[in-house]
């Protein structure tokens, strides 16, 4: 079993659902899924002009992991531009500020402060927890 992915902290989700190319002839190409954390990586590195170490700390991941997310984001954007594909923003492995979780066993709803690293239900310690999408 592979190691589970740490959730990447995203300060604000992208303000769009997607981008569509226009002026192209071909229709119905598969779209590119830009994950929330990839959007955040692009924003931190190329819009806020942070270096990768600072950006990785903000997202709560290591610098190499940040670099991987950023690279994947750039490749997806390049792919979308060159192949005139639609871009859609997808939730991915993000953890939004103030995200609420729900436990599937005892149905408790709870938050997960930064200091807590164990991803278990605070009441019954079940691992069966999921994010409530708002």
């Amino acid at each position, binding site marked *: 079993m592979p190691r589970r992915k740490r959730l990447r902290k995203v300060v604000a989700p992208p303000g769009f659902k997607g981008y569509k190319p226009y002026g192209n002839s071909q229709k119905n190409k598969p779209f590119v899924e830009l994950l929330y954390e990839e959007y955040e990586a692009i924003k931190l590195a190329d819009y806020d002009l942070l270096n990768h170490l600072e950006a990785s700390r903000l997202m709560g991941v290591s610098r190499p992991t940040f670099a991987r997310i950023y690279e994947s984001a750039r490749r997806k954007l390049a792919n979308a531009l060159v192949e005139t594909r639609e871009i859609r923003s997808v939730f991915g492995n993000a953890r939004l500020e103030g995200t609420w979780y729900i436990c599937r066993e005892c149905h408790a*709803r709870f938050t997960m402060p930064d*200091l807590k690293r164990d991803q278990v239900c605070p*009441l*019954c310690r079940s691992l069966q927890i999921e994010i409530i999408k708002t």
Partner: protein
Amino acid sequence: MKTVITSKGNNQNASFDLRFGRAGWFCVVDDASGKPSFIENEQADATGGAGVKAAEKMVELGVQKVISGDFGPKAKELLEKFNIQMVIIQGENQSIKEIISQLIN
């Protein structure tokens, strides 16, 4: 680690209070010993700002987890800022004892 459960009364057989700022009592449970102690909420009948005062109290007590029925927007904001975990449960008919046993097991 300390956990607070909102309670209607000052003993373990009292029922769980769904309100946070206006809960009658706060039951402080230490995870290590499992022993509850009860603190009266002076803000239970306040006209305003009860949630904020209660959240401040949580910070003062050094609590890391709060179990209640719901949290107001201001209390939520404050608890989030101080990295206190909020847990919302629907157990209106549950007693404090039941919740503690769920927590400790």
